[in-house]
């Protein structure tokens, strides 16, 4: 006779059905995220090549750093960690991420403040401002590439006519302006996204406290820094994380706009180059793994620091 008391408890039954609901998701995530990631990490410790994907042998950390002492006594360092091209890419990526996210956050917040005000045609403007973000990156990169073109580009033409420049600038080709060009396009494209996230945060702030501030006669600038900014901060932090994750692994825009400029090569660009173009599959895998690690560290640091600040900054 089965004793009803010996069956699974309600808690166990709930856990079991929860598991079955989660199972498809877990399997899908394993197949498309965990497995490729683990494979890449594995490749980075082998000498795999593109032509022989399954014949790689374990070589330890050599792709990252190998130290060999020659008979003559000379020490030779090799590997990604001593590769100047890699560190140039890291520097480019960090510079691009910090600059673009900063500019986009400030501009996005400004746009959001405008969109948060009530005016006629607000719905239309809100929809219109999203257009740059809705255009596929490849398309907007090509579009901007033409506008930035040194011979026929409209940007050079306008600036020449206005007398802002005396000779045409090779925006995407010149190493001095390539990063600026990439930043311009990225800011143009992604500010709407930031604006939307900021707007969502702004709309969470109750309107009546602004009326209270008006009755109290508090200057709008003070209201912004003492009321709006502290209250929109949590939403802003999340938006910055999203954007930072995106910016650190930027690939498509640069790949189309300035594919071979050392001034704009980022970690994603250089690891793809090694993986595919240079047939250094294992070496590229090592760079991909480092990219993953850097992003993970960066985001953990940001969340950790953000939390410390959140609890301490309650003045």
């Amino acid at each position: 006779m089965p004793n009803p008391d010996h069956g699974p408890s309600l808690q166990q039954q709930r856990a079991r059905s929860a598991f079955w609901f989660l199972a498809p998701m877990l399997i899908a995530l394993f197949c498309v995220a965990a497995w490729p990631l683990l494979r890449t990490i594995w490749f980075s410790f082998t000498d795999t090549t593109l032509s022989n994907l399954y014949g790689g042998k374990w070589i330890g950390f050599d792709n990252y750093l190998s130290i060999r002492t020659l008979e003559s006594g000379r020490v030779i360092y090799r590997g990604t960690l001593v590769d100047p091209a890699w560190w140039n890419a890291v520097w480019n990526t960090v510079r691009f991420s910090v600059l673009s996210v900063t500019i986009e956050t400030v501009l996005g917040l400004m746009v959001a403040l405008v969109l948060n005000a009530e005016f006629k045609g607000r719905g239309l403007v809100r929809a219109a401002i999203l257009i740059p973000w809705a255009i596929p990156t490849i398309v907007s990169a090509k579009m901007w590439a033409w506008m930035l073109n040194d011979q026929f580009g409209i940007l050079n033409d306008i600036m020449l006519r206005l007398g802002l420049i005396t000779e045409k600038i090779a925006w995407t080709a010149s190493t001095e302006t390539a990063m600026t060009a990439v930043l311009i396009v990225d800011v143009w494209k992604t500010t709407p996204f930031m604006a939307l996230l900021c707007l969502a945060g702004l709309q969470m702030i109750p309107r009546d406290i602004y009326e209270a501030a008006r009755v109290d006669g508090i200057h709008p600038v003070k209201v912004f820094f003492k009321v709006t900014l502290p209250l929109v901060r949590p939403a802003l932090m999340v938006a910055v994380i999203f954007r930072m994750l995106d910016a650190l692994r930027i690939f498509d825009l640069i790949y189309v706009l300035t594919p071979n400029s050392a001034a704009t090569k980022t970690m994603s660009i250089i690891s793809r180059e090694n993986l595919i173009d240079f047939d250094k599959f294992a070496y590229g895998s090592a760079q991909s793994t480092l990219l993953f690690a850097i992003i993970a560290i960066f985001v953990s640091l940001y969340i950790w620091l953000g939390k410390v600040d959140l609890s301490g900054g309650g003045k």
Partner: protein
Amino acid sequence: MAQIQLKNLTKAYGAVQVIKGIDLEIRKGEFMVFVGPSGCGKSTLLRLISGLEEITGGDLTFDGERVNNLIPSKRGIAMVFQSYALYPHMKVYDNMAFGMKLAKSGADDIRRRVTDAAKLLQIDHLLDRLPKELSGGQRQRVAIGRAIVRDPRVFLFDEPLSNLDAALRVATRLEIAKLHHSMSGVTMIYVTHDQVEAMTLADRICVLRDGRVEQVGTPAELYEAPNSLFVAGFIGSPKMNFLTGAPAAAHGCTTLGIRSEHITITDAGPLWQGTVVHAEDLGSDNFLFVDIGAGEPLIVRQPGKLAIPYGTRVGLTPQPQHLHRFDAAGLPIR
């Protein structure tokens, strides 16, 4: 401390007129209550006085000075909002002091005024807390305290008690009444849809209906001599009994009004005969619902506990001096 004058004040949103020409004088130090059903324009009127909404037409003067185009902070007002409108990230002290830092008062002066107001409202032990750590009643006190420290000419209250539960509402009502007495000479304007709040707090009540003033007067005046059928029905709980048809015609009017406490149960030659269909025992009073065959049952107030079983036939006689007669337009016949 201000005398406020509204002259033919109007407010329109596009083609929709919400305030349709209001003339009203609010005296110095008076507690004026705007009351009316939702949508009557009472909150809008308060926001016109505060300056949060722009006046479409007419004149608004404070102590004779036209303030139509003066921004809220220059009018010398303080406002208490229905939703408290506290800054959620600031401690109680900062919430109360935030508006003052601008006024270039000295730091000591700010601290003194905030602590004085906090003591007056018995929230001085809460100054280091955040609004989310307070109860609804405490939050409302902070909101009132924030208004007090500004030392305004006029206090504006926009339904300040409607987010509180019933018990707290009565207690806070008392606090506000005490506050008005202790701050002698401060003009207060208070908006509510609750006529009990209006009756208990007001020096004078302004009943609004559909963007117009229906009647202005002391609570007693409104209760005893309503200027219209609407006011008669709106002021007083339970509602005034209204009779139409033959019983009204017998008194030469279209609608006959009589309050529940002005009907006597009597067997000696009663005016009306009816059956008890329902009773509500409130402990101190007993409300009988008597069906006299005229639509709605009459509500009769019986002091004490007079148990009359349902279905009993009773005779009713109204006190003739308390009969309210209204014509077809809803205006009183006196």
